[in-house]
């Protein structure tokens, strides 16, 4: 593996006033950090701490899933039978590809390849859009029109007499809804990254934001890696 030297440009206020170097080269770490390396590590650990709270947020839903599946396995079987695993599979592939483009974006930021950094950010944004489109058009809208909704909103006319199926739909809509909202937030972050990358904010010396958003996107991907078999592949 190649490595890059970040250098120690931590001397504050030493940059000349008329510095026409790109932003990522003349970037100065915040004054409470020793240097950019120090700042990078702190930012990264902060992101990891945030990600651990995200994992705990989703773990609440996984525990709810475990409780209700153990109590009402029939309801989960018949509820899951309404889902087409092929849409779930397609969305999994879309998210995995987007995880790759994010990792590539980080790599291009590290090597200072501005063009491919921007392309990969756009590709990731598009992948998020495709994911939400598939989810919304082929799954959410269909389930909504059929009345396959959580709790008291459940109004499926051809219920196969399985009690507690509305509970399954509560889990389904809750878990995938919170996941989808994370995808939406991620797309907003990638739009922000794109604007900044156009201004050449990211390069070998400074790519904290690309790294942080990338880590967030990977966690969203990992959550889907678990949601896919738990929701679609029950039998």
């Amino acid at each position: 593996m190649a490595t890059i030297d970040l250098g120690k440009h931590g001397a504050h206020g030493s940059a000349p006033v008329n510095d026409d170097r790109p932003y990522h080269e003349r970037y100065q770490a915040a004054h409470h950090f020793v240097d950019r390396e120090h700042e990078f590590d702190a930012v990264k650990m902060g992101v990891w701490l945030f990600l651990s709270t995200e994992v705990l947020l989703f773990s609440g839903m996984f525990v709810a899933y475990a409780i209700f599946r153990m109590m009402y396995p029939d309801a989960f079987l018949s509820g899951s039978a309404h889902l087409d695993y092929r849409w779930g599979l397609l969305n999994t592939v879309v998210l995995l590809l987007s995880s790759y483009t994010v990792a590539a974006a980080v790599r291009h930021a590290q090597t200072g390849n501005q063009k491919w950094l921007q392309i990969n950010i756009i590709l990731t944004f598009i992948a998020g859009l495709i994911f939400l489109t598939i989810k919304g058009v082929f799954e959410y809208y269909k389930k909504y029109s059929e009345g396959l909704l959580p709790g008291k909103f459940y109004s499926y006319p051809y219920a196969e007499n399985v009690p507690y199926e509305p509970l399954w739909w509560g889990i389904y809509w809750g878990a995938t809804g919170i996941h989808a909202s994370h995808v939406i937030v991620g797309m907003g972050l990638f739009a922000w990254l794109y604007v900044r990358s156009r201004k050449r904010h990211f390069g070998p010396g400074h790519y904290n934001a690309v790294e942080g958003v990338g880590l967030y996107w990977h966690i969203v991907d990992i959550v889907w890696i678990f949601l896919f078999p738990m929701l679609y592949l029950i039998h």
Partner: protein
Amino acid sequence: MTSQAQPHAEHFDAHGHKDHGHTIVSVATLRTVLALLLFFTLLTVGATLVEVWIADTFNVLIPQWVNVFVALSIAAVKTVIVVMFFMQLKYDNPLNTMIFVFTLLTVCFFLGFTVLDLGNRGTIDRFKEGHILRGGTGLGTGMPITQSSKIAAVTNQTYDEHLAHHAHHGPRLPITEAGYVSKVPLAGSSAQRSKPVQGITLEGLSVPAAQTEDEHGEGPAH
């Protein structure tokens, strides 16, 4: 002013803080990881399809935990790959790995104790298993839930007082079976079965609405 001029920077480096720069993961590694992830995705779908096929063709009942175990194992492998290479924990400060591992450990506690609780209710608390009261607590009946559910069990003929006290006269039963008339299906909901809650319609345990209406109905007749 260079970093060498700063005492903090020297202190930093002296403690082995990485001054060798950041790892750039090679394109080959990233592509291999992507290929592996796609492979495992197809594998998890394939495992499910094969399982369904086996169950249908040979007419066998595969327990649910097989499905869950296979799916979660493959998902765990995928997660490890993503975390190590895409999220670069393999090349990162070990402290970040510690944060993530302890988070996962916490999640395991959450899930583990939940499964332990629900999965064993039927074994260690058989007495209450079939008789979860509507509303769950049995409050308002003026007696402990164990007592009210026992009354319900006797009334529903799923519990035999005599057998319970003289189990040693009959065939040897596990302690959890003692007193239960095994041929009568347990009423109500349980952690293991998906059945609607029947509730308890014992007199004295609740105030039936019908009774109150009857009393009112008799009123005009007087």
